[in-house]
């Protein structure tokens, strides 16, 4: 085999902290002292926390992000290797159960700066207008306290900030287009196009996906190496680590990594006064803050609130409604695998590169409400092995044989809307973590509508795979993503936060992450989480000091503050669609 012309590849020797292959950040960053009162303590620097940190710092607030995992140096810490990427996931102990238990860990939970946005596949469809009024339209689930029109400017904004690559015309939901060009197809995308076309199903080619199709600032374009969900070492896939954290630090934010928040402390006048946490050395510390934002996602956020129960909030902090932990959702995420006579080599190209939302909306012809999407996925060998095990009960020689055909298989993921149910919930377990904190116990049960929807989605996805030319089609039941468990709403008796992600109970406490979703649609939640975070930041900035001391809850919508976006992501020279 040939040798590299310039010798073996060596990592940059600049001693800089690398965020992707080109971008670096100069450290040390600003450090606040524990006894110093910061304006905002943000718990969790993930998809939402990263955006909030950036916006609030740029607006001039003193803000610290406490992150349980590491602040990644992508050149040093990340690898093109499945087994070597397990540190990206939340693997602290949890208990999972119910009639249809959810897999957690690598399936849906991130750890470290960037959180889940580090290992998402980066599909970024918007929710549809119908998603915001599911109860009104279908009599199931819940309505959101906001409409599509209220979040739309933030979708457009975040699609530029990530930015999102996709087709110039996207027909589903509120039709729109993408400013950055679609990606070339890999073997799985070709199969999806072929199958959909044969069945006269429209298909979106090359996106929408938050992966660069051309270089952008100090981030290079995608190299199609297929390790998206192992962390994009290239820096082409958007994560808040590479899109918002650099600007947050330049704007004076602090990220305190390896800091596990254990409890939010309630002070006088029904206001929180800061967070207790364990630092890198495992020492118990307390950070004073004038307000706290919890961005720990759908399991750690309710766990923290429940573990913060105190006098006046015996059921859990900000839980006078009793809703904290309830209405947890995951999407049906069955993987449908098809074997083709010809080679596919599905490890090339991003797993996420084509989809159809043709079956997204409620169809009166169905015996269930709501719908599903069909998307490309691209399992690497470890994941594929476990899929062959689950789908074909393969073990021993049977498994070895199936695996030798790896390059003949393509895989689609269905993404089906599971409705919010009160009995799907996060409670506190008797198990403890290494800090002695009770861990989360997750209970998940499918209901009738969910089961019917999954059956139909599975059949349709398998039909598409067969239409693509697969000679054998099998499937693995699973779930994808998490949302809910601290839902937003207008009624404090049935929801945890208001439409600006502010606790109904406590004026200077916010919950901003996927846990606030009242319903979830069949869209991957990442874009909506970041859009909500930007909107919450605009509200917080508009309210100014009122958050820290005001008596009145102002429900006026804030103006969108595009000028607070990271520089070079909005404005002159950046393509846009209007």
């Amino acid at each position: 085999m040939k040798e590299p012309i310039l010798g073996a590849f060596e990592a940059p020797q600049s001693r800089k902290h690398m965020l992707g292959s080109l971008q670096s950040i100069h450290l040390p960053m600003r450090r606040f002292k524990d006894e110093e009162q910061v304006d905002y303590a943000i718990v969790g620097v993930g998809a939402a926390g990263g955006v909030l940190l950036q916006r609030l710092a740029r607006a001039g607030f003193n803000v610290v992000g406490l992150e349980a995992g590491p602040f990644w140096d992508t050149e040093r810490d990340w690898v093109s290797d499945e087994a070597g990427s397990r540190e990206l996931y939340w693997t602290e102990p949890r208990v999972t159960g119910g009639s249809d238990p959810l897999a957690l860990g690598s399936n849906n939970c991130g750890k470290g700066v960037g959180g889940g946005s580090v290992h998402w596949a980066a599909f970024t469809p918007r929710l549809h207008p119908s998603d915001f009024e599911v109860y009104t339209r279908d009599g199931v689930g819940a309505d959101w306290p906001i409409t599509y029109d209220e979040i739309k400017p933030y979708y457009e904004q975040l699609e530029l900030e990530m930015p999102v690559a996709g087709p110039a015309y996207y027909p589903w939901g509120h039709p729109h287009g993408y400013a950055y060009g679609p990606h070339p197809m890999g073997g799985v995308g070709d199969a999806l196009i072929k199958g959909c076309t044969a069945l006269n199903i429209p298909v979106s080619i090359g996106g929408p996906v938050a992966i660069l199709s051309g270089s952008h600032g100090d981030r290079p374009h995608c190299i199609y190496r297929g390790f998206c969900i192992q962390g994009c070492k290239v820096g082409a896939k958007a994560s808040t680590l590479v899109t918002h954290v650099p600007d947050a630090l330049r704007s004076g934010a602090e990220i305190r990594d390896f800091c596990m928040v254990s409890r939010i402390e309630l002070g006088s006048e029904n206001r929180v006064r800061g967070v207790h946490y364990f630092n890198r050395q495992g020492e118990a510390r307390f950070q004073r803050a004038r307000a706290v934002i919890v961005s720990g996602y759908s399991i750690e956020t309710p766990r923290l609130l429940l573990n913060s129960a105190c006098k006046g909030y015996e059921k859990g902090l900000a839980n006078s409604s009793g809703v904290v932990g309830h209405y947890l959702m995951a999407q049906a995420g069955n993987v449908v695998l098809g074997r083709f006579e010809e080679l596919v080599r599905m490890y090339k190209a991003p797993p996420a590169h084509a989809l159809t939302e043709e079956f997204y909306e409620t169809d009166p012809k169905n015996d269930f409400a709501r719908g599903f999407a069909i998307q490309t996925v691209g399992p690497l060998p470890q994941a594929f092995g476990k899929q062959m095990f689950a789908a074909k009960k393969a073990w021993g020689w049977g498994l070895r044989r199936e695996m030798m055909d790896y390059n003949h298989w393509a895989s689609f993921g269905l993404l089906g809307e599971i409705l919010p149910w009160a009995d799907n919930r996060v409670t506190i377990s008797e198990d403890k973590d290494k800090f002695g904190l009770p861990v989360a116990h997750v209970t998940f049960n499918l209901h009738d509508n969910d089961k019917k929807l999954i059956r139909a989605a599975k059949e349709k996805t398998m039909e598409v795979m067969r239409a693509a030319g697969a000679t054998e089609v099998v499937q693995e039941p699973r779930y994808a993503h998490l949302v809910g468990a601290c839902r937003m709403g207008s009624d404090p008796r049935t929801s945890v936060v208001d439409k600006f992600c502010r606790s109904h109970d406590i004026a200077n406490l916010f919950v901003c992450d996927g846990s606030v979703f009242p319903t979830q649609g069949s869209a991957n939640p990442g874009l909506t989480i970041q859009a909500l975070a930007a909107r919450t930041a605009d509200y917080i900035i508009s309210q100014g000091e009122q958050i820290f001391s005001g008596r009145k809850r102002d429900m006026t919508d804030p103006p969108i503050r595009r000028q607070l976006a990271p520089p070079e992501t909005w404005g002159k020279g950046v393509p846009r669609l209007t």
Partner: protein
Amino acid sequence: MKPIFPAVEDALLPRDPVTQEPIPPRQQPGYYPGFNTLSQRRYWDEATRRVVEERVNHPPERKFFSQAAWDFWTVVFEHLIPQTDRTPDRRIPLVPALDERLAANYTVGYRYEDMPHDRVVYEWGIQAIDAEAQYRYGGGFLTLSSLHRDEVLKVIQQERPKAAAEIWKKMSVTRFWQLIMADAIDTYYAHPWAWDEIGFGGPAYPRAYTRLERGEPEPWEVEPQRYDWIPPLSSVSGEVDASGESPQSHHGSGGSH
């Protein structure tokens, strides 16, 4: 590294479906002869190269299991992912990575409510498998013939164990099988020799993949050369079954979307 496995008898070798003759062990089974991901390691980034080379050259030493437990699971894993088609110098050690995982008490990030902690699973698992071996063949698992060991494991795979009822009351047989298979798969298919076997291109940063469509090979990849084979006579793990869907098989720890 000295060979871990003894030499192989014919009944344990995959066969030619036409002649029924055993196929001699190969350095590299699979349909991609000459394909070698490790030969490309100088094109990989430094961190990836370090992690993969460490995996190949320095399997972890025993830290958690007793010698007896280590030997027991080594034999079990020889059935979960058999490697008698590989020459002894090219077999992929599976138990060291498991032992290291348990030593560090590292898990996938959750346990099912009907399962004990992973360390306990691997303790009870020995008792349950041995009890099933006793019940069926009147001897400990390690004393059985290879075929009988395969049969014992198949009973557990099919969720029909007859012995050790008190253990299976406290530990789901479905989840137990999932866990040990996941450990076997995660280790075997993390090894570059397994990548070569299945034609997976491996790490591609910073070089990139450039031929995305129609399964075309990169310049350093090869076209497949298929050959037919059937499982060894002394084995019962060759069958697959995609017919049923266990309602409990929400495995999905792979995280593909």
